[in-house]
Protein backbone atom coordinates (compact mmCIF):
# COMPACT_ATOMS: atom_id res chain seq x y z
CA UNK A 1 0.00 0.00 0.00
CA UNK A 2 1.55 3.26 -1.12
CA UNK A 3 0.62 5.18 2.01
CA UNK A 4 1.91 2.68 4.60
CA UNK A 5 5.54 1.69 4.91
CA UNK A 6 6.03 -2.03 5.55
CA UNK A 7 6.82 -2.86 9.17
CA UNK A 8 10.52 -3.26 9.94
CA UNK A 9 11.74 -6.83 10.14
CA UNK A 10 12.27 -6.76 13.89
CA UNK A 11 8.68 -5.74 14.65
CA UNK A 12 7.31 -8.15 12.05
CA UNK A 13 8.79 -11.17 13.71
CA UNK A 14 8.69 -10.23 17.42
CA UNK A 15 10.46 -12.29 20.01
CA UNK A 16 9.03 -15.76 19.40
CA UNK A 17 10.51 -17.80 16.58
CA UNK A 18 7.06 -19.25 15.88
CA UNK A 19 5.21 -15.95 15.74
CA UNK A 20 3.01 -16.10 12.68
CA UNK A 21 2.75 -13.51 9.99
CA UNK A 22 -0.74 -12.47 10.84
CA UNK A 23 -1.89 -9.30 9.23
CA UNK A 24 -2.04 -8.29 5.61
CA UNK A 25 0.50 -5.49 6.10
CA UNK A 26 3.07 -7.95 7.44
CA UNK A 27 2.56 -10.28 4.51
CA UNK A 28 2.81 -7.38 2.10
CA UNK A 29 6.04 -6.34 3.77
CA UNK A 30 7.37 -9.88 3.47
CA UNK A 31 6.69 -10.09 -0.26
CA UNK A 32 8.10 -6.64 -0.83
CA UNK A 33 11.33 -7.59 0.97
CA UNK A 34 11.84 -10.78 -1.03
CA UNK A 35 10.91 -9.15 -4.36
CA UNK A 36 14.52 -8.74 -5.54
CA UNK A 37 15.30 -12.45 -5.15
CA UNK A 38 11.84 -13.96 -5.66
CA UNK A 39 12.33 -15.09 -9.25
CA UNK A 40 15.82 -16.48 -8.67
CA UNK A 41 14.68 -18.44 -5.65
CA UNK A 42 11.65 -19.85 -7.49
CA UNK A 43 14.01 -21.08 -10.20
CA UNK A 44 16.57 -22.59 -7.84
CA UNK A 45 14.19 -24.13 -5.33
CA UNK A 46 11.93 -25.75 -7.92
CA UNK A 47 14.81 -26.70 -10.24
CA UNK A 48 12.98 -24.78 -12.93
CA UNK A 49 9.84 -26.91 -12.56
CA UNK A 50 7.69 -23.91 -11.55
CA UNK A 51 7.63 -22.93 -15.22
CA UNK A 52 5.87 -26.19 -16.10
CA UNK A 53 3.37 -25.89 -13.26
CA UNK A 54 2.54 -22.33 -14.31
CA UNK A 55 2.02 -23.33 -17.95
CA UNK A 56 -0.32 -26.09 -16.78
CA UNK A 57 -2.22 -23.63 -14.62
CA UNK A 58 -2.66 -21.19 -17.50
CA UNK A 59 -3.91 -24.00 -19.75
CA UNK A 60 -6.45 -25.03 -17.14
CA UNK A 61 -7.77 -21.44 -17.01
CA UNK A 62 -8.87 -21.82 -20.63
CA UNK A 63 -7.66 -18.41 -21.80
CA UNK A 64 -7.72 -17.94 -25.56
CA UNK A 65 -7.09 -15.28 -28.23
CA UNK A 66 -8.73 -11.90 -27.63
CA UNK A 67 -9.88 -12.82 -24.12
CA UNK A 68 -9.90 -10.45 -21.15
CA UNK A 69 -8.08 -12.19 -18.33
CA UNK A 70 -6.91 -11.47 -14.81
CA UNK A 71 -3.83 -12.68 -13.01
CA UNK A 72 -4.46 -12.15 -9.32
CA UNK A 73 -1.57 -11.88 -6.85
CA UNK A 74 0.60 -11.55 -9.94
CA UNK A 75 3.87 -10.86 -8.11
CA UNK A 76 6.66 -10.38 -10.63
CA UNK A 77 4.43 -11.44 -13.50
CA UNK A 78 5.22 -15.03 -14.50
CA UNK A 79 1.60 -15.97 -15.13
CA UNK A 80 0.74 -12.58 -16.62
CA UNK A 81 3.42 -13.02 -19.29
CA UNK A 82 2.09 -16.47 -20.16
CA UNK A 83 -1.47 -15.13 -20.35
CA UNK A 84 -0.29 -12.26 -22.52
CA UNK A 85 0.94 -14.69 -25.16
CA UNK A 86 -2.25 -16.73 -24.94
CA UNK A 87 -4.65 -13.83 -25.49
CA UNK A 88 -2.51 -12.02 -28.03
CA UNK A 89 -2.46 -8.33 -28.95
CA UNK A 90 -6.26 -8.09 -29.16
CA UNK A 91 -6.69 -9.46 -25.66
CA UNK A 92 -6.26 -7.77 -22.29
CA UNK A 93 -4.32 -8.96 -19.26
CA UNK A 94 -4.93 -7.30 -15.91
CA UNK A 95 -2.27 -8.22 -13.39
CA UNK A 96 -2.97 -7.23 -9.80
CA UNK A 97 -0.82 -7.41 -6.67
CA UNK A 98 -0.62 -5.67 -3.30
CA UNK A 99 3.16 -5.27 -3.44
CA UNK A 100 4.44 -2.24 -5.33
CA UNK A 101 7.96 -3.69 -5.24
CA UNK A 102 6.85 -6.87 -7.00
CA UNK A 103 4.95 -4.83 -9.60
CA UNK A 104 7.98 -2.67 -10.32
CA UNK A 105 10.00 -5.81 -10.97
CA UNK A 106 7.23 -7.04 -13.25
CA UNK A 107 7.34 -3.83 -15.28
CA UNK A 108 11.11 -4.02 -15.49
CA UNK A 109 10.86 -7.59 -16.80
CA UNK A 110 8.23 -6.45 -19.29
CA UNK A 111 10.67 -3.89 -20.68
CA UNK A 112 13.56 -6.33 -20.62
CA UNK A 113 11.86 -9.23 -22.36
CA UNK A 114 9.86 -7.02 -24.67
CA UNK A 115 7.46 -8.89 -26.91
CA UNK A 116 4.87 -6.97 -28.91
CA UNK A 117 2.00 -8.81 -27.21
CA UNK A 118 3.22 -7.68 -23.76
CA UNK A 119 1.63 -4.29 -24.50
CA UNK A 120 -1.63 -5.97 -23.55
CA UNK A 121 -0.68 -6.18 -19.84
CA UNK A 122 -1.93 -3.62 -17.31
CA UNK A 123 -0.24 -3.78 -13.89
CA UNK A 124 -2.43 -2.72 -10.98
CA UNK A 125 -1.67 -2.26 -7.32
CA UNK A 126 -4.73 -3.50 -5.53
CA UNK A 127 -6.39 -5.60 -2.88
CA UNK A 128 -7.49 -9.11 -3.82
CA UNK A 129 -10.36 -8.76 -1.34
CA UNK A 130 -11.67 -5.56 -2.99
CA UNK A 131 -11.10 -6.03 -6.71
CA UNK A 132 -11.29 -2.88 -8.85
CA UNK A 133 -13.31 -4.46 -11.66
CA UNK A 134 -16.94 -4.62 -12.70
CA UNK A 135 -19.04 -7.76 -12.34
CA UNK A 136 -18.66 -10.56 -14.90
CA UNK A 137 -15.74 -8.92 -16.67
CA UNK A 138 -13.11 -11.63 -17.20
CA UNK A 139 -13.00 -14.65 -19.50
CA UNK A 140 -10.42 -16.39 -17.31
CA UNK A 141 -8.58 -15.82 -14.05
CA UNK A 142 -5.34 -17.26 -12.69
CA UNK A 143 -3.89 -17.12 -9.20
CA UNK A 144 -0.37 -18.40 -8.70
CA UNK A 145 0.85 -18.95 -5.12
CA UNK A 146 -1.46 -16.21 -3.94
CA UNK A 147 -4.65 -17.59 -2.40
CA UNK A 148 -2.71 -19.26 0.42
CA UNK A 149 -1.36 -15.85 1.48
CA UNK A 150 -4.75 -14.15 1.68
CA UNK A 151 -6.21 -13.82 5.14
CA UNK A 152 -9.85 -14.10 4.02
CA UNK A 153 -9.95 -16.84 1.41
CA UNK A 154 -13.74 -16.94 1.37
CA UNK A 155 -13.96 -13.25 0.50
CA UNK A 156 -11.24 -13.64 -2.13
CA UNK A 157 -13.15 -16.48 -3.80
CA UNK A 158 -16.35 -14.41 -3.71
CA UNK A 159 -14.57 -11.55 -5.45
CA UNK A 160 -13.11 -13.91 -8.05
CA UNK A 161 -16.58 -15.31 -8.66
CA UNK A 162 -18.03 -11.81 -8.98
CA UNK A 163 -15.63 -10.59 -11.66
CA UNK A 164 -15.65 -13.83 -13.67
CA UNK A 165 -18.02 -14.17 -16.62
CA UNK A 166 -20.59 -16.98 -16.40
CA UNK A 167 -19.18 -20.11 -18.00
CA UNK A 168 -15.57 -19.06 -17.40
CA UNK A 169 -12.90 -20.60 -15.17
CA UNK A 170 -10.45 -19.69 -12.48
CA UNK A 171 -7.23 -21.67 -12.11
CA UNK A 172 -5.52 -21.46 -8.73
CA UNK A 173 -2.03 -22.91 -8.40
CA UNK A 174 -0.38 -23.32 -5.03
CA UNK A 175 1.33 -25.70 -2.66
CA UNK A 176 -0.79 -28.73 -1.93
CA UNK A 177 -1.90 -29.16 1.65
CA UNK A 178 -1.92 -32.91 1.48
CA UNK A 179 -3.88 -35.37 3.58
CA UNK A 180 -1.02 -37.81 3.08
CA UNK A 181 1.41 -37.88 6.00
CA UNK A 182 4.25 -38.89 3.67
CA UNK A 183 3.75 -35.90 1.37
CA UNK A 184 3.31 -33.49 4.27
CA UNK A 185 6.48 -34.71 5.93
CA UNK A 186 8.34 -34.53 2.61
CA UNK A 187 7.23 -30.94 2.15
CA UNK A 188 8.25 -30.02 5.67
CA UNK A 189 11.62 -31.75 5.31
CA UNK A 190 12.32 -29.91 2.05
CA UNK A 191 11.37 -26.56 3.53
CA UNK A 192 13.52 -27.10 6.63
CA UNK A 193 16.52 -28.64 4.87
CA UNK A 194 16.53 -27.11 1.41
CA UNK A 195 14.32 -24.04 1.09
CA UNK A 196 15.27 -22.21 4.27
CA UNK A 197 19.03 -22.90 3.98
CA UNK A 198 19.05 -21.77 0.33
CA UNK A 199 16.97 -18.70 1.18
CA UNK A 200 19.35 -17.90 4.03
CA UNK A 201 22.14 -17.51 1.44
CA UNK A 202 20.08 -14.63 0.08
CA UNK A 203 19.43 -13.29 3.56
CA UNK A 204 15.79 -14.38 3.74
CA UNK A 205 15.65 -17.44 5.97
CA UNK A 206 12.97 -15.92 8.24
CA UNK A 207 10.76 -14.98 5.32
CA UNK A 208 10.86 -18.47 3.85
CA UNK A 209 10.25 -20.13 7.21
CA UNK A 210 6.79 -18.56 6.83
CA UNK A 211 6.12 -21.10 4.06
CA UNK A 212 5.70 -24.08 6.39
CA UNK A 213 3.14 -22.34 8.60
CA UNK A 214 1.25 -20.94 5.63
CA UNK A 215 0.90 -24.41 4.05
CA UNK A 216 -0.27 -25.82 7.38
CA UNK A 217 -2.92 -23.09 7.59
CA UNK A 218 -4.01 -23.52 3.97
CA UNK A 219 -6.94 -25.61 2.76
CA UNK A 220 -6.74 -29.16 1.45
CA UNK A 221 -7.86 -29.91 -2.08
CA UNK A 222 -11.27 -31.09 -0.89
CA UNK A 223 -11.68 -28.01 1.29
CA UNK A 224 -10.82 -25.77 -1.67
CA UNK A 225 -13.40 -27.53 -3.83
CA UNK A 226 -15.98 -27.09 -1.08
CA UNK A 227 -15.12 -23.39 -0.67
CA UNK A 228 -15.49 -22.79 -4.40
CA UNK A 229 -18.93 -24.40 -4.45
CA UNK A 230 -19.99 -22.49 -1.35
CA UNK A 231 -19.38 -19.15 -3.06
CA UNK A 232 -21.28 -20.23 -6.13
CA UNK A 233 -19.00 -21.96 -8.60
CA UNK A 234 -20.92 -24.65 -10.48
CA UNK A 235 -17.98 -27.00 -10.64
CA UNK A 236 -14.65 -27.27 -8.82
CA UNK A 237 -11.87 -29.80 -9.09
CA UNK A 238 -8.48 -29.85 -7.38
CA UNK A 239 -5.61 -31.54 -9.21
CA UNK A 240 -2.46 -32.68 -7.46
CA UNK A 241 0.72 -32.22 -9.48
CA UNK A 242 4.46 -32.53 -8.90
CA UNK A 243 4.02 -35.75 -6.98
CA UNK A 244 1.42 -34.17 -4.71
CA UNK A 245 3.65 -31.31 -3.60
CA UNK A 246 1.66 -28.79 -5.64
CA UNK A 247 -2.01 -28.50 -6.40
CA UNK A 248 -4.22 -26.62 -8.83
CA UNK A 249 -7.87 -25.81 -8.22
CA UNK A 250 -9.98 -25.31 -11.34
CA UNK A 251 -13.41 -23.83 -10.71
CA UNK A 252 -16.04 -22.93 -13.28
CA UNK A 253 -18.68 -20.27 -12.79
Amino acid sequence: MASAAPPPASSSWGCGRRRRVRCSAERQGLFSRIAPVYDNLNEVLSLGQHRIWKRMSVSWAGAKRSDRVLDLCCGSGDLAFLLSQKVGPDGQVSALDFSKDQLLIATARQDLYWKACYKNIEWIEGDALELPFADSYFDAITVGYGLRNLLDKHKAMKEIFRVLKPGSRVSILDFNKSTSTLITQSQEWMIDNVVVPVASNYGFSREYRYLKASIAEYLTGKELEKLAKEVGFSDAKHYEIAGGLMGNLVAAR
Partner: protein
Amino acid sequence: MVRASRRLLKDAANIGKAFSDFLACPLSKQPLRHCEDSQSRISETIGVSFPIIDGIPCLVPKDGKLLEDQNKSQVENGADPSSGNSERDLLLAVNIWVTGLI
Protein backbone atom coordinates in the same frame (compact mmCIF):
# COMPACT_ATOMS: atom_id res chain seq x y z
CA MET B 1 10.88 2.08 -39.83
CA VAL B 2 10.82 5.33 -37.85
CA ARG B 3 7.23 5.94 -38.97
CA ALA B 4 6.30 2.40 -37.91
CA SER B 5 7.90 2.92 -34.49
CA ARG B 6 6.01 6.17 -33.98
CA ARG B 7 2.77 4.44 -34.92
CA LEU B 8 3.51 1.61 -32.47
CA LEU B 9 4.15 4.08 -29.63
CA LYS B 10 1.00 6.02 -30.46
CA ASP B 11 -1.01 2.79 -30.59
CA ALA B 12 0.50 1.77 -27.25
CA ALA B 13 -0.58 5.08 -25.68
CA ASN B 14 -4.11 4.69 -27.06
CA ILE B 15 -4.28 1.08 -25.93
CA GLY B 16 -3.09 2.13 -22.49
CA LYS B 17 -5.78 4.79 -22.17
CA ALA B 18 -8.60 2.59 -23.50
CA PHE B 19 -7.35 -0.33 -21.45
CA SER B 20 -7.47 1.58 -18.18
CA ASP B 21 -11.03 2.72 -18.88
CA PHE B 22 -12.30 -0.64 -17.64
CA LEU B 23 -10.98 -0.14 -14.10
CA ALA B 24 -13.60 0.28 -11.39
CA CYS B 25 -13.62 1.74 -7.92
CA PRO B 26 -12.60 -1.03 -5.50
CA LEU B 27 -15.30 0.10 -3.07
CA SER B 28 -18.32 1.09 -5.18
CA LYS B 29 -17.39 -1.11 -8.21
CA GLN B 30 -18.50 1.79 -10.43
CA PRO B 31 -16.38 3.00 -13.38
CA LEU B 32 -13.53 5.38 -12.66
CA ARG B 33 -12.85 8.61 -14.51
CA HIS B 34 -9.31 9.34 -15.59
CA CYS B 35 -8.07 12.78 -14.54
CA GLU B 36 -5.20 14.00 -16.71
CA ASP B 37 -4.35 16.95 -14.47
CA SER B 38 -3.84 15.01 -11.27
CA GLN B 39 -2.86 11.76 -13.03
CA SER B 40 -5.36 9.83 -10.96
CA ARG B 41 -8.52 7.78 -11.26
CA ILE B 42 -11.62 9.40 -9.80
CA SER B 43 -14.56 7.58 -8.26
CA GLU B 44 -17.42 10.06 -8.66
CA THR B 45 -19.76 7.81 -6.70
CA ILE B 46 -17.89 8.20 -3.43
CA GLY B 47 -15.79 11.26 -4.25
CA VAL B 48 -12.42 9.59 -3.95
CA SER B 49 -9.35 9.71 -6.15
CA PHE B 50 -6.79 6.96 -6.54
CA PRO B 51 -3.27 7.87 -7.60
CA ILE B 52 -1.27 6.55 -10.53
CA ILE B 53 2.36 6.18 -9.47
CA ASP B 54 5.15 5.11 -11.82
CA GLY B 55 2.45 4.38 -14.38
CA ILE B 56 0.73 1.88 -12.07
CA PRO B 57 -2.80 2.64 -10.84
CA CYS B 58 -2.95 2.28 -7.04
CA LEU B 59 -6.43 0.98 -6.37
CA VAL B 60 -6.04 -0.28 -2.82
CA PRO B 61 -9.00 1.20 -0.90
CA LYS B 62 -6.86 2.91 1.72
CA ASP B 63 -4.81 4.60 -1.02
CA GLY B 64 -7.88 6.62 -1.96
CA LYS B 65 -8.01 10.29 -1.09
CA LEU B 66 -11.17 12.32 -0.62
CA LEU B 67 -11.54 14.81 -3.45
CA GLU B 68 -12.18 17.59 -0.93
CA ASP B 69 -8.87 16.86 0.81
CA GLN B 70 -7.07 16.74 -2.53
CA ASN B 71 -8.51 20.09 -3.62
CA LYS B 72 -7.63 21.65 -0.27
CA SER B 73 -4.04 20.49 -0.46
CA GLN B 74 -3.69 21.87 -3.98
CA VAL B 75 -5.05 25.26 -2.86
CA GLU B 76 -2.79 25.42 0.18
CA ASN B 77 0.09 24.57 -2.15
CA GLY B 78 2.51 22.58 -0.20
CA ALA B 79 0.56 21.50 2.83
CA ASP B 80 1.07 17.86 3.69
CA PRO B 81 -1.86 16.03 2.07
CA SER B 82 -1.33 12.82 4.04
CA SER B 83 -2.99 13.83 7.27
CA GLY B 84 -3.53 11.32 10.01
CA ASN B 85 -7.28 11.73 9.52
CA SER B 86 -7.35 10.85 5.82
CA GLU B 87 -8.05 7.16 6.43
CA ARG B 88 -10.80 8.02 8.92
CA ASP B 89 -12.35 10.45 6.43
CA LEU B 90 -12.19 7.83 3.68
CA LEU B 91 -13.98 5.33 5.89
CA LEU B 92 -16.54 8.03 6.71
CA ALA B 93 -17.13 8.67 3.01
CA VAL B 94 -17.63 4.97 2.37
CA ASN B 95 -20.00 4.75 5.32
CA ILE B 96 -22.03 7.66 3.96
CA TRP B 97 -22.13 6.00 0.52
CA VAL B 98 -23.19 2.62 1.94
CA THR B 99 -25.86 4.28 4.13
CA GLY B 100 -27.21 6.02 1.04
CA LEU B 101 -27.70 2.65 -0.66
CA ILE B 102 -29.83 1.27 2.18
